[in-house]
């Protein structure tokens, strides 16, 4: 039986090939070969890679008595969806989003991940990246969202906060390396598998959650409205973000900061259901209350970029001129190692994509042998472009070439490296005018979070029922 997590395996459809189990970084999928598998909700980090690789689907030839209609209904998917329904699937927030969009009293806000935009075109049979960001904005407005933001602004804040934390911990002799807290699946993985390392995690919320808390704290004030009347949707490439959004501590007021998560695939279902073709729409601009930082679009789409940005910003904060920072990235097996020379000290980072590749770095931290200042860990095999909520590649042989195309998109590449976050006018404005001071009570309340040690021993649901 499935146990109510965000990732489910359909017991009727699963053939028990166990490819998902072999790919699961946390051994959350159990079952006999040739028998339906099930996901343990306690172990699952909701990275959604099983959803991406599952090949068992509802055959049109086995359909009897409208089972497909029923199944679409059970999964809360629009009836217009034409794609096969695979055994491994993620739960969605579509009913909540639809209800919010037609509710008059609610102001709907959507924050758009840069990594969703390029691959969205694939869902419409177009070349990757041929739908422009402005057209996605237009499509979201057409669906009825009142405000559409790019979450690159929040990415900028997350990077700045993490860079500050490195500088602070270096100065005070705190726990090093600082572990990136931007990937919700990686955070959950650390809480479960390396609970003693949660003090190494950056205290900063993930960029998507920062977008959420800024909406409920900052935008609500700007709009002069009660946060309860703001419905906050996060358009993400990620299924783990769904699990993250429901964490009880991620709220600035009484209600959750992120009310609903929408993945790129689900957005495509919504658009097709309404008959909107985003590639034909006239471009529209992101709203400017949280102004997009275009240089950061590429971050999270390419392994090592977050670490580079964080280290560069650390340099800025330590008062080193941009020219003195040397950024070199060496690619190794599943990981790369950006370095920055600040003054006479070298700051190193390790970036690993895929939780299996991340584990050795965490093991080194546990033993106290990690030579790095920063660890960037991403749960999905190629960063956010291969996220659980991205368009699902049908043939295994095409998976890596398509992920590579997505990561190399020109639209995602920065015009020039170095976003100069510490001097960014919009971020300064937020800190100076709204928070009053950086790392004060108010900014901590909105931008920082805490972590929970989770061990497996409490979980066996099946054992307690037998």
């Amino acid at each position, binding site marked *: 039986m499935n146990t109510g997590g965000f990732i489910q395996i359909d017991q009727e459809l699963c053939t028990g090939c166990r490819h998902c189990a072999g790919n699961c970084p946390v051994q959350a999928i159990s079952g006999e070969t040739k028998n339906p598998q099930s996901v343990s909700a306690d172990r699952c980090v909701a990275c959604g890679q099983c959803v991406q690789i599952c090949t068992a689907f509802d055959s049109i030839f086995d359909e009897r008595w409208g089972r497909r209609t029923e199944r679409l209904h059970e999964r809360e998917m629009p009836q217009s969806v034409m794609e096969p329904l695979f055994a491994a699937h993620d739960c969605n927030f579509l009913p909540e989003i639809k209800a919010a969009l037609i509710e008059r009293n609610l102001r709907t806000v959507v924050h758009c991940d840069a990594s969703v935009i390029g691959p969205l075109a694939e*869902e419409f049979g177009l070349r990757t990246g041929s739908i422009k960001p402005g057209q996605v904005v237009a499509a979201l407005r057409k669906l009825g969202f009142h405000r559409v933001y790019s979450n690159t602004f929040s990415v900028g804040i997350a990077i700045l906060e993490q860079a500050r934390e490195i500088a602070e911990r270096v100065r005070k002799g705190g726990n090093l390396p600082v572990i990136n807290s931007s990937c919700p699946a990686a955070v959950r993985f650390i809480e479960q598998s390396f609970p003693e390392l949660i003090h190494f995690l950056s205290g900063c919320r993930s960029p998507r959650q920062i977008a959420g808390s800024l909406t409920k704290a900052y935008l609500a004030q700007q709009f002069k409205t009660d946060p309860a009347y703001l419905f906050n949707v996060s358009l993400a490439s990620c299924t783990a973000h769904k699990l993250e959004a429901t964490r009880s501590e991620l709220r600035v007021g009484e209600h959750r900061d992120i009310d609903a998560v929408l993945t790129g695939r689900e957005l495509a279902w919504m658009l097709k259901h309404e008959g909107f073709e985003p590639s034909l729409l006239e471009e529209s601009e992101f709203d400017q209350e949280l102004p997009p930082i275009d240089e950061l679009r590429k971050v999270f789409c390419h392994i090592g970029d977050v670490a580079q940005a964080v280290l560069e910003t650390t340099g800025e904060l330590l008062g080193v001129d941009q020219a003195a920072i040397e950024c070199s990235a060496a690619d190794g097996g599943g990981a790369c190692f950006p370095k920055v020379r600040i003054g006479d000290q070298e700051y190193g980072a390790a970036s690993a994509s895929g939780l299996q590749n991340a584990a050795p770095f965490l093991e080194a931290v546990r033993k106290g042998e990690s030579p790095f200042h920063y660890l960037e860990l991403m749960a999905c095999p190629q960063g956010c472009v291969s996220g659980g909520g991205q368009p699902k590649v049908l043939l*295994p042989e095409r998976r890596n070439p398509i992920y590579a195309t997505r990561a190399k998109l020109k639209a995602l590449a920065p015009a020039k490296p170095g976003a100069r976050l510490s001097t960014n006018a919009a971020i300064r404005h937020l800190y100076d005018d709204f928070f009053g001071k950086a790392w004060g009570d108010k900014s901590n309340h909105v931008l920082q979070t805490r972590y929970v040690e989770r061990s497996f021993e409490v979980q066996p649901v099946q054992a307690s029922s037998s």
Partner: protein
Amino acid sequence: MAIPPEVAGELNARLTPRLFVVSASEVTAPVMCRHCEDAPCANVCKMSAISRADGKVLVNTERCVGCHLCLMACPFGAIEFAPLSPDASPIYPMAAKSSGEKNKTTMYRANKCDLCNDRANGPACIANCPETALVLVNAVAATRRRRNEAALDLLAEQNAVWV
């Protein structure tokens, strides 16, 4: 040649599989068309919609009228009938034009393995089977390989006796 869909969302019609995985307690195997030389499905087709060319038995969907005779003739159960409309919804039959029939029905056409006739690199099932359990058998090469194996076995047997 049309580019085949790459991602699930790109499919604008229901997927109609051409091989069928049979799973029983002792065996799991896909069953598909054997591309018979004297194909019973082609022999039985009244519309000459099934023909064999270049080692492939192919259905001409334009000619097929959905009589299901081939389905009954096939000894392997390799033929299924797939809906003509992309979402399996009922449509007006062609006969409606002359007979004035007003009722929509879901119409079906013969659907079977064509060894990925449109695909440059041969059958997609072979390229993508994670267990590499599928091979395309070339009769000449297969016979030659069998003979070589038999000869080697013979040699091994002799050595075993004489040493």
